[in-house]
């Protein structure tokens, strides 16, 4: 099932540190040989300052207790540098850690800077040092420290470029600490800046959006409200364009979100068109499933795809998140997805049939006969389905659903009179003001 794995396509758009959770997941799922994953991890770590962790991995990878000398050297170097940076930033840090002093800061940045400079002899160098320190902290894997410092840095920073990168850093740190609520706030902040800022080239902006979307996957599939928000974000024209041009694999997540989200029907139709259009550039069982149900009306294939979808979801680091309840682990998204997918098939199927054999239906829904019957009865009971079961022949009968012609006509014209009234009254109003003006 590794052929539907998106990690190689997602990873380039993530921060180095954000790739770890993905690799962890892959290791757990046993999709790739352990050795490969360990090697990948090691390579990742080489560029970071998490030397201790790298040593651990190294040991696991080579099955030795020895650690190469350069790693040890590097460790010393990292520690030394950390010390140096800490020293550089210490005046500011101590100031910020002092509750009372911190209270003196106001909303206005310029004032703050001046105040700091005058009273505490903290100038731009120290502020810059704070940024470097925070960055280093992040690279060392101390995310909470990095997040705190970056937050503080942002209150003092005047350079918008720097401020943005501090924001990215904060976002990454929050994601890694799994503070989804805060991360979501940060995400929205980054998004605002990306949308409003003028980039040197449109390409740059698109690239930024792509990053944002990739990073947001962590949040959206962990946050409670994430599934609606992912649609809100991804389905915006600008972002959808970015997906279509540079990262069609994100369609999988958008598609999944659409499937599990029942309230998004209007946008759903447009989305189907996007899927159709992007067929040539990206296809996986989830998008194919939608295409089968809504484009080809091929229900057998849809059912087939549904089974594949299950696999894909289980193997996807974002979608296949497990919920542990006691010693019983389940993948909530999978169940939800399957349930909704079934509903999709059934709904479409019913729309074009007036009589369906229960057996066939059960087969199409991936259920057994009893389950199917219960399922349908439930639907009818909750009046989601206008149908009856003929248990003697074992069929479901759909109620014909033809709107009355006269009703339609009335519907058509109803709004007209209201609109005309409004129009007239507005005209009159206008005329009166005109006259009054004279």
């Amino acid at each position: 099932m590794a052929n539907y794995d998106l990690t190689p396509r997602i990873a380039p758009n993530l921060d180095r540190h954000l790739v770890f959770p993905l690799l962890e997941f892959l290791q757990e799922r046993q999709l790739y040989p352990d050795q490969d994953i360990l090697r990948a991890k090691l390579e990742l770590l080489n560029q970071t300052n998490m030397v201790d962790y790298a040593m651990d991995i190294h040991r696991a990878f080579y099955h030795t207790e020895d650690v190469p000398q350069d790693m040890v050297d590097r460790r010393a170097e990292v520690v030394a540098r950390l010390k140096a940076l800490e020293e550089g930033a210490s005046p500011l840090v101590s100031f910020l850690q002092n509750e009372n002093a911190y209270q003196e800061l106001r909303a206005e940045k310029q004032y703050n800077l001046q105040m700091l400079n005058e009273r505490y002899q903290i100038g731009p160098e120290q502020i810059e040092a704070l940024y470097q320190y925070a960055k280093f902290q992040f690279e060392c894997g101390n995310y909470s420290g990095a997040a705190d410092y970056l937050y503080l840095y942002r209150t003092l920073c005047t350079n918008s470029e720097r401020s943005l990168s501090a924001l990215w850093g904060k976002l990454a740190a929050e994601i890694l600490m799994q503070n989804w609520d805060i991360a979501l706030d940060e995400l929205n902040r980054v998004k605002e800046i990306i949308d409003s800022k003028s980039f040197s080239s449109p390409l740059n902006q698109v690239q930024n959006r792509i990053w944002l979307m990739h990073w947001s996957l962590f949040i959206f599939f962990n946050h409670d409200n994430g599934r609606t928000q992912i649609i809100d974000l991804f389905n915006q024209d600008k972002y959808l364009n970015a997906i279509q041009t540079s990262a069609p694999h994100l369609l999988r997540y958008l598609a999944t979100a659409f499937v599990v989200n029942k309230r998004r029907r209007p946008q759903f139709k447009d989305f189907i068109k996007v899927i159709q259009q992007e067929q040539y550039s990206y296809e996986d069982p989830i998008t194919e499933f939608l295409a089968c149900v809504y484009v080809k009306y091929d229900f057998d294939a849809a059912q087939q795809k549904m089974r594949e979808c299950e696999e894909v979801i289980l193997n996807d680091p974002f979608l296949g998140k497990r919920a542990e309840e006691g010693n019983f682990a389940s993948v909530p998204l999978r169940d939800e997805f399957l349930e909704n997918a079934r509903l999709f098939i059934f709904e479409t199927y019913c729309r074009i049939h007036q009589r369906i054999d229960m057996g066939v239906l059960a087969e199409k829904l991936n259920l057994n006969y009893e389950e199917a019957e219960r399922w349908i009865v439930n639907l009818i009971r909750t009046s989601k389905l206008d149908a009856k079961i003929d248990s003697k022949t074992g069929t479901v009968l759909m109620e014909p659903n033809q709107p009355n012609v006269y009703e339609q006509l009335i519907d058509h014209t109803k709004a007209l009179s209201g609109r005309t009234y409004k129009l007239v009254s507005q005209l009159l109003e206008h005329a009166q003001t005109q006259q009054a003006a004279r």
Partner: protein
Amino acid sequence: MASRFWTQGGDSETEEEESDYEQEDNEVPVEDINKAAKSKYLQGSDTESDDEDGQKRVVKSVKDKRFEEMTATIDQMKNAMKINDWVSLQESFDKINKQLEKVMRVNESDRVPNVYIKALVMLEDFLNQALANKEAKKKMSSSNAKALNSMKQKLKKNNKQYEEMINKYRENPEVEEEEDGDDDDEDGEDEDSEFEEDPSKLGMESDAEEDEDKEAGEDDANETGPGWEKMMSKKDKLMDKQFKDPSQITWDTVNKKFKEIVAARGRKGTGRIELVEQLTFLTRVAKTPAQKLEILFSVVSAQFDVNPSLNTHMPINVWKKCVQNLLTILDILTQYTNIVVDDMVEPDENETQKGTDYNGAIRIWGNLVAFLERIDVEFFKSLQVIDPHTREYIERLRDEPTLAVLSQNVQEYLERAGDNKGAAKVALKRVELIYYKPQEVYDAMRKLAEQNEGGEGEADGEPKAVEESRAPPSFVATPEIVPRKSTFPESSRTLMDILVSLIYRSGDERTKARAMLCDIYHHALLDEFSTSRDLLLMSHLQDSIQHMDISTQILFNRAMAQLGLSAFRVGLIAEGHGCLSELYSAGRVKELLAQGVSQSRFHEKTPEQERMERRRQMPYHMHINLELLEAVHLICAMLLEVPNMAANSHDAKRKVISKTFRRLLEVSERQTFTGPPENVRDHVMAATRALRQGDYQKAFDVINSLDIWRLLRNKDSVLEMLRAKIKEEALRTYLFTYSSSYDSLSLDQLAKMFDLSDKQTHSIVSKMMITEELHASWDQPTRCMVFHDVEHTRLQALAFHLTEKLTVLAESNERAQESRIGGGGLENLPLRRRDGQDYAAAAASGGTARWQDLSFSQGRHGTGGGRTGYNAGGRTYSGQAGGFSRDRTGQSRGVGRTYQTGSAARASQMDGSTRMVSLNRGAYA
């Protein structure tokens, strides 16, 4: 006399006419003399006064001089005979006739000198001999053979006058003297005036030169050396003399001479070819590489001047030489990397004096890119002018690799020199050489280029040898450093990718746009429809294309046409139609693609316009086959329109997808008798008739019988696709048309009727049900479709029409009011307005001001795309339709349940157009 100016072509025909005149002249000698004298005054008085002066002062010596000249010319003729050079022989013959006249005048006798007669006899003998030798004649070069022929006629005519004398001479070679020569005198004079009156004529140049020469060096004529020298003008000879001794040549002399020649350029009376030859000579004696380079640049620009007209092309041999010169320039530039070519700075006067050992940068004036572009233009023009069905055209096409080599070299040089902008321009030229070539043609070109290497080496060897022998070896030898053979990658796509990415990196706007279009074209050619569509949409070219120059617009149209073809090949009928329909909407395809001129009934073109248009034409080998294009367009239209018409049978005018197709169909239906199909149009119409009855087999057979399909590479798969599509549309049409006659219909039967699999049938019918095109539903246990009787009565249908129109009316009222008062407080307006703006943005050419009435009229008559700019491209229409139907969708959503028949059709239209919307949306990246 006047008419004589016109009949001076110099070829045999006019010669004959001339002889008529001559006879006339003989009848009225006095008058003629006067005229001749008069005309003599008209021309440069230089000769005249000179002659007169001479006459007065030293009669004797002048007389001798004339004789000497004559004998010299005869010597030249002898030489020419030796090497069988009829061109120079002809020249000499003309010359001797002129000299004869002078001699006669000087001698004041009417007797033709013996020498002249002797020459005539000699010439006649030689001519007869040459004519007799058929083998040799065949081997002659074309110009030589031509000269021989005209010589034959001239001589025949001329000799008639001296027949008596010639015979006498033949009898007794020694005896001559005392004959009448009155006529001859006049004759000679005539010829003289004739020649001198048309200085621009190349053959005459030497005469004028000669006169000048007289001043320069009296005994010059005596110096005439071996035969080949006659090819050169006197001036050349002069230079030759001046530079005869290699040791005496200095940079200064060459520079002086160079300046002199360049100064003469463009002046009246300076022969263009002459100039080229002189300069070429100078390149050989140039002292420093820089100087050689400088002179070579002048040679090239002089060569460009050879053809002054915009409408005709540069002579092909000159073109080839020009390419060689440019290659030499590149050789020098590569050899001496310290020489910098620049057209911005006026270089130092003595910049070129710096020799090989000079280390600093030497700046030379010149613009390689401009030269290359000019070369390319000339090549293009020559292909435009040459009849594509001749061998000449193919020969000319063979020069393409040469051009490719040159541009490749120039590009490499520019890249080395760091001029990326220039390199991008040159790369564009290369792109334009290959973008229209499918892989097969590209392969052929590659092979040709490889073969050429061998062949060209030989061909090159010969002229080189001649050159070598003709001139002293040049001082600055330039080894061939730059490769004369271009390296083509295996696949044309690779080459395109390399070039195009270079251009995107560093080209200017226009270059980038053109490269993008070429790229789109090429992708489409390789059946990569989606890639090329994405490129087109992302480039936003549709929005800006009408502001570009016409040739780019033509390129855009070509790319659109190719895009349409490729969409069709991969089976995307609606997209294909979208791309092509605009090209055909005004019936000016030929014009839009620059593949011929179409006559318009309504407005006459001025000659100027026509000329412009002719200048834009694509050479034949770049054409997109119009028949194929038309067939594809009509078939796409058929596949979309036939079910559409069937669905809206009660009011056919409602939703028109292709107006062109509808019009054609009307015309063909109006015919009382329909014969067997002849052209593409007839075929498609016949297929349409069959399809409307649901007879898919016949429809396919008719279309299959078109012989244009052989033009397709993957003919079989395309036809297979077409067959499947026709079946599908036949099924849909059948259901639309006959659903009212059925109560239920089994799936199996339907599948059998249209030879489709159950699954396909099920899928197609289901789709129709979902989109509410068909009011039926499946009865799953019996595998039947059950039709619902929901057809509206006429009254009901009319009522719906009324409500629709009312809605439109209300809407337009609201808009009108809003635009008048501004800022309407109507609750549903904001949404619509946004849609409208969207639409306006999409149809950039539509003009925002008129958008409401436009969409209104669309709602009523389904018109659109009526106003099309010269080049608005398919997008205008699709943009409008897109925006419009979005508006519609919003509306129907707001209203809630829509009535059935209307919405059925609407849904289908919506389906098509929203696809375009999403296409458009893709563009707003």
